[in-house]
């Protein structure tokens, strides 16, 4: 593909400027970055506005900007489930997470597993929660890097460089971006990410605004855009008497994803970094403004269909390498002048840095608090604690880079799909126990194991190609998001076993939290 010097120049200038912000941030609201809660949670100091930028950058990732329209481009209406998903997750945020914030603040919890450990005094359950978080997040980081790869390719940056001493090195732009990401995360922690998130939003919003005004105008209006889409893909096929059909799987995908989202370690990190529970409540009302942008971005997939980018010879290579994920970059290149394509691509690339960094920070905190300090080195100093977290976050990113460079991106997508199913299984231990401790820790562990096994088996059975598994109940086929059906099993096992265990042993269980901690 031809590279445009203007697009590359604008892109590089913006990227360097924004990454520079990440390093400056170490001095912003100066604090002792040798404390885990300072490095990993920004000192729990972010007010409503910063938290809005940070959580927005955290939840609406670069990969979302590429993958959601790509799904619309290929599959049609199904891809739009991201919109109801990102609406119904906010009542969940509003209801549960102020409680979690309060109890975390009171007891100095940095991760969800910290809370579970304190609530139930069970090291095993806390370890299960921590490991689930780490394993579910790793492929997510890899997908962010994969998103950057698409952008670099669309820009026409030369991927293979011949360097003295090293010979031919592949994927050089990605490796450079990785070094930038790793360095600023290590140096400034969550503070750096918060500043970068602000810059990223300016770029993304500019792009979205321009795209939804300019592109439909050039294509002849929204009616023309929708007319270009295959009518069979424009709506979901209706269910029948013996099969609830795609309308049901659409709803189950939206609900399951919404339940899973805030259980991810990186969402937890973003939430716990807020300066008060009011910040979380206000953001449950303010964050949906990103969903408006997301719904417009989703429609870019249809605009790409209407523009006919897939049959354009100049994009054949991109589609061959990245499949439908190339639809949005191709649309941007086709519709906008080169300099603006540079702005848009910088927005997407920076949009990958923000969540990738928060995810790595969150995994670093999880490992340090719930594995290293808990099992390996119980009397480590705060400084050792934050150093281990920094090193682990670096290793997580290296793992993700290895994933993208050495394995096929399709593995990362499949693993991320599994990750969503897995993380959902931590819901009973983390969210339900915010309200009640009637559930027994052993029962929670058994429910978790049952949900993990069932969810993995369903994904396996589908060949990791899809996540909606058809259940057969009373002669009716129910195509349901595996995360959701596994969660139902998980809760059923947990409740039944809790009843049994509580009836057998009536001994009081340790709980370092009290009712006042939650309000």
């Amino acid at each position: 593909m031809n590279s445009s010097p203007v697009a590359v120049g604008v892109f590089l200038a913006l990227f360097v400027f924004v990454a520079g912000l990440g390093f400056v941030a170490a001095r912003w609201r100066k604090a002792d970055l040798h404390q885990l809660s300072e490095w990993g949670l920004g000192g729990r100091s972010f007010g409503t506005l910063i938290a809005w930028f940070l959580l927005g950058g955290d939840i609406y990732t670069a990969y979302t900007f590429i993958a959601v329209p790509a799904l619309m481009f290929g599959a049609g209406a199904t891809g739009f489930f991201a919109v109801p998903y990102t609406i119904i997750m906010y009542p969940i945020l509003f209801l549960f997470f102020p409680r979690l914030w309060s109890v975390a603040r009171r007891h100095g919890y940095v991760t969800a597993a910290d809370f579970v450990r304190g609530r139930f005094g069970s090291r095993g359950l806390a370890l299960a929660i921590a490991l689930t978080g780490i394993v579910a997040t790793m492929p997510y980081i890899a997908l962010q890097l994969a998103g950057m790869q698409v952008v670099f390719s669309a820009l026409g940056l030369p991927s293979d460089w011949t360097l003295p001493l090293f010979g031919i090195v592949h994927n050089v732009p990605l490796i450079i971006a990785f070094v930038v990401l790793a360095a600023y995360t290590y140096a400034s922690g969550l503070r750096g990410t918060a500043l970068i998130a602000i810059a990223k939003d300016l770029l993304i919003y500019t792009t979205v605004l321009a795209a939804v005004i300019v592109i439909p105008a050039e294509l002849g209006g929204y009616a023309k855009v929708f007319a270009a889409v295959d009518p069979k893909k424009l709506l979901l096929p209706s269910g029948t008497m013996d099969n609830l059909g795609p309308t049901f799987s659409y709803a189950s995908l939206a609900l399951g994803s919404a339940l899973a989202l805030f259980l991810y370690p990186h969402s937890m990190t973003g939430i716990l970094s807020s300066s008060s529970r009011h910040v979380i409540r206000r953001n449950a009302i303010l964050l949906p403004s990103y969903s408006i942008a997301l719904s417009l971005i989703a429609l870019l997939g249809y605009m790409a269909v209407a523009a006919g980018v897939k049959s354009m010879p100049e994009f054949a290579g991109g589609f061959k390498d990245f499949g439908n994920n190339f639809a949005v970059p191709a649309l941007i290149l086709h519709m906008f002048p080169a300099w603006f394509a540079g702005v848009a691509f910088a927005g997407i690339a920076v949009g990958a840095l923000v969540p990738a960094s928060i995810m790595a920070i969150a995994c670093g905190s999880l490992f340090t608090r719930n594995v290293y300090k808990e099992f390996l080195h119980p009397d480590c100093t705060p400084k050792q604690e934050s150093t281990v977290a920094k090193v682990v976050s670096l290793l997580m990113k290296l793992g993700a880079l290895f994933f993208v460079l050495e394995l096929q991106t399709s593995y990362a997508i499949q693993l991320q799909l599994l990750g969503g199913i897995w993380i959902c299984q931590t819901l009973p231990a983390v969210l339900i126990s915010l309200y009640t401790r009637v559930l027994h820790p052993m029962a929670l562990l058994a429910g978790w194991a049952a949900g993990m096994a069932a969810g993995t088996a369903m994904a396996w059975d589908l060949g990791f190609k899809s996540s909606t598994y058809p259940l057969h109940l009373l002669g009716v086929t129910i195509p349901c998001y595996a995360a959701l059906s596994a969660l139902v099993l998980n809760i059923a096992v947990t409740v039944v076993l809790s009843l049994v265990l509580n009836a057998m042993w009536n001994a009081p269980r340790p709980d370092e939290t009290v009712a006042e901690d939650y309000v």
Partner: protein
Amino acid sequence: MSSSPKPEASRKFHPVYLWLLLPFLCLLWVPSYNRIDPALFGIPFFYWYQMLWTVLGALAIVPVYLHEEGRKK
């Protein structure tokens, strides 16, 4: 979801919390909006209805927010 009557959740259930259920009801009953007409500016109902809910969903939280903030005083 919120009305767990355990001793820890000592507050009584208040009907204002029902607002939080509204987005779930209106978005998860997919057959109710899985249609083309009425279109708006050429956008089929399926799409503009859900896009409208990005705003309505946020508004549905506002009464509960006001209730909780008011209770603090």
